């Protein structure tokens, strides 16, 4: 009898939960669709996807193709933000790892796979450094990562000697612009890495720990969670993701541009995470929504480029659209709209 009651209750209580989740998905997804439709109106050829040289080709493909590196960075950023941190150094990590890759290809005959591993390891080391500063020296995340943000570019330039180091090689060219079954390799890499991260976060208790540390680090420590370890881990993950993005970006132009690779990317990544509904004050992160956030930003960028808008207006349009998306997203704004609609009805 009670068992039956319980089960009924259970169903009742899970229902609103899933509805609520749906609502959270709604805003970003609608925003993305609107921007894509807008792009279609501005640029007629937007939706056509052709096959060129045996792979998919078109503006829609471009969005995921271009977004692949940003999405990696953003997903790492989402986890860091989940711990109530922030990682400003991602751009520099991208530069460092790109530089490491390029210089190793140029100066050694290591197998490309080993080079990739070394580059990723470099990203992990960077993440470790950030994590140590934040978790063990208690330096505030913005400042802790600002250090690497400033110094990292210097390190990257030191590695490349200040030049754009160009390289060639089938392995990295494939990562940059190759295709598997018509789908860009970099998109596949990003998807696999993100799926892996998602599984690690949501199929183990790691995600819970991250959110708990972000929500209240003191309480989490008292509940037996290694709060410092979790923070370090978050930065390491972010470093790893940025490293992969760095390799992709370098492979894309077949060169390591220590000065410009990933410049200001941290802002786009943070923006994507927030558009994806996470609070910068930590406590919650959503990987899927972050991906959508990146797609929104990338679709917007691509749309602006396609529209032929004079360059000097680009920033204003970007700021305006982002603002609108954020306002529509904000729960408070939605409440206000709903209330206004109700008032009209009654």
């Amino acid at each position: 009898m009670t068992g039956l009651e319980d089960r009924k209750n259970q169903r009742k209580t899970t229902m609103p939960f899933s509805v609520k989740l749906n609502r959270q998905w709604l805003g970003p997804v609608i925003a993305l669709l609107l921007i894509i439709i807008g792009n279609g109106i501005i640029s007629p050829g937007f939706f056509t996807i052709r096959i060129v040289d045996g792979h998919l080709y078109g503006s829609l493909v471009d969005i995921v193709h271009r977004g692949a590196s940003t999405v990696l960075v953003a997903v790492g950023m989402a986890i860091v933000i989940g711990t109530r941190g922030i990682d400003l150094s991602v751009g520099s990590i991208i530069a460092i790892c790109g530089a490491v890759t390029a210089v190793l290809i140029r100066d050694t005959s290591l197998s490309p796979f080993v080079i990739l591993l070394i580059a990723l390891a470099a990203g992990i080391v960077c993440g470790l450094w950030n994590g140590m500063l934040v978790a063990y020296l208690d330096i505030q995340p913005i400042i802790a990562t600002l250090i690497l943000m400033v110094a990292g570019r210097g390190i990257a330039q030191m590695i490349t000697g200040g030049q754009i180091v160009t390289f060639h090689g089938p392995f990295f060219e494939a990562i940059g612009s190759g295709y598997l079954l018509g789908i860009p390799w970099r998109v596949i890499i990003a998807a696999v890495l993100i799926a892996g991260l998602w599984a690690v976060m949501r199929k183990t208790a790691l995600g819970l720990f991250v959110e708990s540390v972000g929500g209240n680090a003191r309480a989490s420590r008292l509940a037996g969670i290694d709060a410092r370890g979790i923070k370090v881990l978050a930065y390491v993950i972010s470093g790893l993701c940025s490293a992969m993005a760095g390799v992709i970006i370098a492979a894309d132009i077949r060169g390591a541009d220590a000065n410009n690779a990933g410049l200001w990317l941290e802002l786009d990544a943070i923006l994507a995470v927030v558009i994806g509904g996470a609070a910068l004050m930590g406590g919650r992160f959503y990987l899927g929504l972050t991906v959508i956030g990146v797609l929104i930003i990338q679709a917007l960028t691509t749309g602006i480029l396609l529209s032929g808008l004079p360059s000097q207006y680009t920033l204003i349009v970007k700021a305006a659209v982002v603002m609108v998306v954020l306002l529509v997203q904000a729960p408070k704004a939605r409440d206000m709209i709903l209330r206004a609609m109700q008032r009209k009805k009654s």
Partner: protein
Amino acid sequence: MINERYYPLLATLAVCALLYGYGIYEHRAFSDTYVLGNLLTDNAFLIVTAIGMTFVILSGGIDLSVGSMIAFVGVLMAELVGGFGLHPLAAVVIAMIVGTGFGGFMGYLINKFDIQPFIITLAGMFFLRGMCFVINLDSVPISHSFVSDFGSFRIPLPGRGWLSASALVMLAAVIVGIVIAHYTRFGRNVYAIGGDRQSAELLGIPVGRTTVQVYALSGLFSSLAGVVFAFYTASAYPLAAVGVELDAIAAVVIGGTLLTGGMGFVIGTFFGGIIMGVIQTLISFDGSLNSWWTKIMIGALLFGFIVLQRLITRSFSGLRAGAG
């Protein structure tokens, strides 16, 4: 016993003195008042910006739009003076009203829609920079006798140095900032909101109004910084002051203000800005570092500084074990 709230400030002072002492020890010219005067002049706009930023950070927020604001104010003033033939002072007034208004508007959005300041001000940063491009793509001189008089005004210091008008404006701004922070209810409310927003609300503090005012104040200070910068260079450049927001944040934090809000001092920010300047000056005095070593050195000095500050703060307070 000294109140524990002053430890970070003392640490900042100690490190500042240490750094300056090192400069004097290493380079003879460093002890000249010329260097001191330069420090005050060259970092004036940064410190003015950072004072506004101090209030924002004290309230638990952040303002990324300040760098763009500096450029925007410059371009706007150049347009007003050059295009419309206004007197620079009138342009200053208009620019500062616009700046304050824009800051207040961002504060309004942050408060009304509960969106995170980081993001609103990021959009503000893009928007203002974009506005610069729309008004004027080129770098243009602001030529007016008033501007050049402002530029050449100087109060001599003993030695080779002098205090410039920029430095004086900055010092005045520091004093105004200190008074606002420590001797007005608004200032104390800012601390309260940053310390615990929810509690502040329950204590009956007008949180919404104060938030709007804080961003307006930051707008005011950053547009003042824009004015100082425009007069300092007697020109406007749409790409001016890129990344100054990060320098300003760093100055505030180095000055001992907690990024989470509620604790810190305006005077600390002043020294924070000076420290940033000293680091730069040391590097160019040295003159042997190439481009990348410059960056690495700035990072390393920042790191060394913060660690030192941590250590000093900790050894002062002895107990106080931090959690996770």
